[in-house]
């Protein structure tokens, strides 16, 4: 019972198929996955193995062909678009490979954006603390295009943590960064998640990063292989 209560994310026979007949592509094929509160899970696999598709479904960005995703005890696969956007801004923090900051907003505004969209009261000391933790104190007024890749990704991490989501999903967060910066960013991501007690799911094909995780899930041809 207590084990169940700790489960933050669970999938049941999750499938995502594209095309039909001879062209049928099983991007995700019957995946059952359980992630506990506060856990750091890395999902590894080759290019085209279906790991990104899996992440998108976990993050309520994409609908499964069949199967269910349970987030915080709720079956989000049955939710309508409006409820999904609410879930995304309250319970999920995203980190993309290409940072995907909003170019017209400065660093601070990018960080507090999910809170603003949810009309939530701003916990300013908390945000300031995140900014400090990620070393962005001097950059809060900067526009994203004036930042280096590492700085942009740190800003994206801050944005993902700011709304105190239940789970942070990161899709190749170091993919666009050099090794040194990548390691630095990954370390920050891990410490931040730990510090604020958040669950972290990271997609990567970087072995080193995978080894930083509490648990590693291997995916090949849409299936969990280890």
């Amino acid at each position, binding site marked *: 019972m207590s084990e169940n209560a700790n489960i933050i994310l669970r999938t049941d026979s999750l499938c995502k198929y594209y095309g039909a007949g001879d062209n049928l592509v099983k991007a995700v094929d019957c995946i059952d996955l359980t992630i506990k509160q506060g856990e750091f899970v890395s999902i590894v696999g080759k290019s085209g193995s279906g790991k990104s598709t899996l992440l998108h479904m976990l993050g309520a960005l994409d609908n499964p062909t069949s199967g269910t995703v349970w987030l915080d005890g709720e079956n989000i696969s049955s939710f309508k678009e409006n409820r999904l956007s609410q879930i*995304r801004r309250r319970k999920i923090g995203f980190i993309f490979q290409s940072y995907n900051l909003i170019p017209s907003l400065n660093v601070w505004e990018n960080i507090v954006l999910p809170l603003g969209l949810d009309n939530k009261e701003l916990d300013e000391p908390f945000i300031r603390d995140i900014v400090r933790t990620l070393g962005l104190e001097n950059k809060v007024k900067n526009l994203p295009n004036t930042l280096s890749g590492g700085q942009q990704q740190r800003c994206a991490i801050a944005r993902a943590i700011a709304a105190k989501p239940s789970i942070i999903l990161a899709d190749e967060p170091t993919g666009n960064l050099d090794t040194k910066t990548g390691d630095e960013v990954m370390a920050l991501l891990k410490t931040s998640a730990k510090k604020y007690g958040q669950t972290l799911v990271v997609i990567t094909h970087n072995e080193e990063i995978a080894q930083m995780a509490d648990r590693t899930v291997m995916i090949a041809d849409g299936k969990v292989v280890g």
Partner: protein
Amino acid sequence: MKMIFHLALSKLHYHKSRTLLTGIAIMLTTMLLTAIGTSAIAMLDMNRQLAVAQTNYHAAFGLTEPEQLSILSKHINVESLATMENFAQIINGKMNGYLRYYDTVKDGIYFSNLELTEGHFPEKENEICSVPSFFERVGADPIVGGKVTLSFRAGGKGEVQTKEFTISGLLTDVEISADISDSRIAWGAYVSKALLTQYEEAGLYESLPSAYLRVYGEDTLSYDEIEAKIISTATDVGLDEEHVSCNNQYLYTMTAPDTDAISIVVVISLVVILFSALVIYSIYYVGVITDIQEIGKLKALGASRRQIARLFFCQGGIVCAFAIPLGLLIGYFLPWFLFPQVIRILNASALDSTRMDHLKSLRNQLHMFSLPFLLAVIASVLITVWVSLLKPIRMAKKVSPVEAIRYQENTTDCKSRRGHLTVKVSTLTWANLARNKRRTLVTMLTMGLSSVLFICVAAVMNSCRVEDLARRNIQEGEFRISLNYAHNDKEYPENNLDALVQQNYFSEEFLAQLSSIEGVESVTRAPGNILASTDEESAFFEDVQDRLPISYFTREDIPELNEQLVSGEIDYDRMTANNEILCTHKYSFDAYGLALGDVFPLILHDGDREIPLTVTLTAVSQPESYTTLIIMTKDSWDNLGLTYDATTDIYVHVKEANYDDVKKTLQDIVAENEHFELYSLDEEMAIGRSGLSLIKYPIYLILVLIAVIGFMNLINTMITSIITRKKELGILQALGLSNQQLVRMLSAEGMVFTTGTLLISTTLGHLFGYLFFLYAKKMHFMSLTGYHFPIWETVILALVLLGGQSAITLFIRKKVEKESLIERIRGQE
């Protein structure tokens, strides 16, 4: 090259929506240009055919000696020659008519209103021919061989003669609206040479016709050359220029294309090209921005700058190859179908239907096709597309492969932003607009510009009020009863104003009688008129039979007089003290060589009394309202101490419900007095309306064109703003932006454009509209008088902008949402 062509083709296919938008923009541009030009060609051709259809003489000479006619008939320059003379004035109630004699000396002159439908032209002294409606008006049966008795004064003077005529022929009839009174139409009936000779022999008439002639060389000579030829012919027969009146309408039409029409077409076309270029440019500009990564990849693969440029030109060329022919086709056939409709509308509102009868038969023979013009349209559109492509191509050429991969959309030079502590949907809206300051401003300005144009034209059109035109003849109330007086009729002096005032037609009793009619609210007097003569030699007085009516103005009139002041200064008290007068007609002032400071020793004819008064001309103004050529102050007028009431016009104010009944009663009252003339508001409005409709429809067409172009700009702006941010909007949705929030954000952005545009159009539009109105008024365009704020046009503009913007936002959002969130976050277009 083949590779580039294939690449261009596949790019066009890939970016379907952009290709469609460019295609529509190019097609619309071609269509508008072709339609405007084709309409103008058709209009010119119609004017040409109309000019030919009415009459084809080049000039009319007012002969001074009978011998001049025979010299003219043998003159080497003269191709054809005809004569026309007004033999007698018809006396029949208020009918304004003449007995005329027409004769062809040398074949070739044509008058459309002299075409016989049956019978022949008068030969015997008692024969007459005219249009059937003329005979009906004088109470005779319009049949050949029928009898009609007419009273007339030969030469417009002498004794009134009464004679019975036999109708020898009928001319093509003119349909006149039944509402128009006789006095407002000029009638003509034709008599024989035999009758003229009879009167000449009896010494009652002296024949001195006008000669209508054509000179050789219409096809080869310019307007100036023909005019010079006409003048030299006149000089040869001993006539100076003032006796020559050129048929300018015909000559202009035949020798030189209508330069006014052409310049209007050129201006409209330039506006169309300017707006289209802007729209096409911004579509390609956006295209480059979204394509930068792809261009970078092409460059990385070894594409040269020239090849990149060629790729763009190739894309433009392929779209043009489809859009231009389609635009030409629609643009050509639109006027082809609409022109007869416009003619029908014109026909319905025309007073004189003979002109329009010609139009009906012209419909299928109008010459609208002009290959050089269509080629010019193609060239203009191609150049427009080429120019619009230059800047985007220059941008594309500069893209380096490395830059392309790193490239982020819509980057600005700004390094930081002050920003807000919290972020709301409105923050996103403003941040986006501020990031694209230049685009936001350019869009608002271009949309604002087209709206300003719209409001400007609407302001002038809205100020062209039929009622204003009618009010020039009836300044107050609904009816005007006017005393029809002569200035100085020697034969019938009882018709002169000084004699008429002694009859006191507008007595208090008469006014009381009018007031007692059911439905009449009040009867008011217009400022009176008094005849003035001078002993001094003055052409000014000679042309009005030596007697000039004078009226007065009050202190209340000074603002209007000052507004229209041409020269001099209006100081009421000084003018009263020094007996100073004001001339109300600039043209007469110039034509008669008057000058400020001119002194006139006048004799004012107050009934049988003569009042000497020396006046000085000290100001010239041109008020719109009906008034005499010379006016004095009311105080000067009162100082004259007139014995008789000088009222010549009264206004009748009636309740709307009783209008028709009162009109009938007034018509009966007016019919009893041959000196009375009735002007009624509905007739004056009908006359005004027919004049207005000629100008109204083409101008409204231009308004619609401006609106279409403005709308194209709006569509482009909205598409640009949403499509280019597809990815960004996707990220926002991934971060939790709900659909409602997205709609709110996009609508708010659109609202900023709409509000900005409306702000520009209501402020600048009305400012320029008013200036444009003042200019049009100064140029006496459609006799504008008062400025009427185009409130409805503004409301319609606002509704169209709001509705259009919402519809487009909705449409594009639906289109964007067809793609999954993942595709949007990842992808380009």
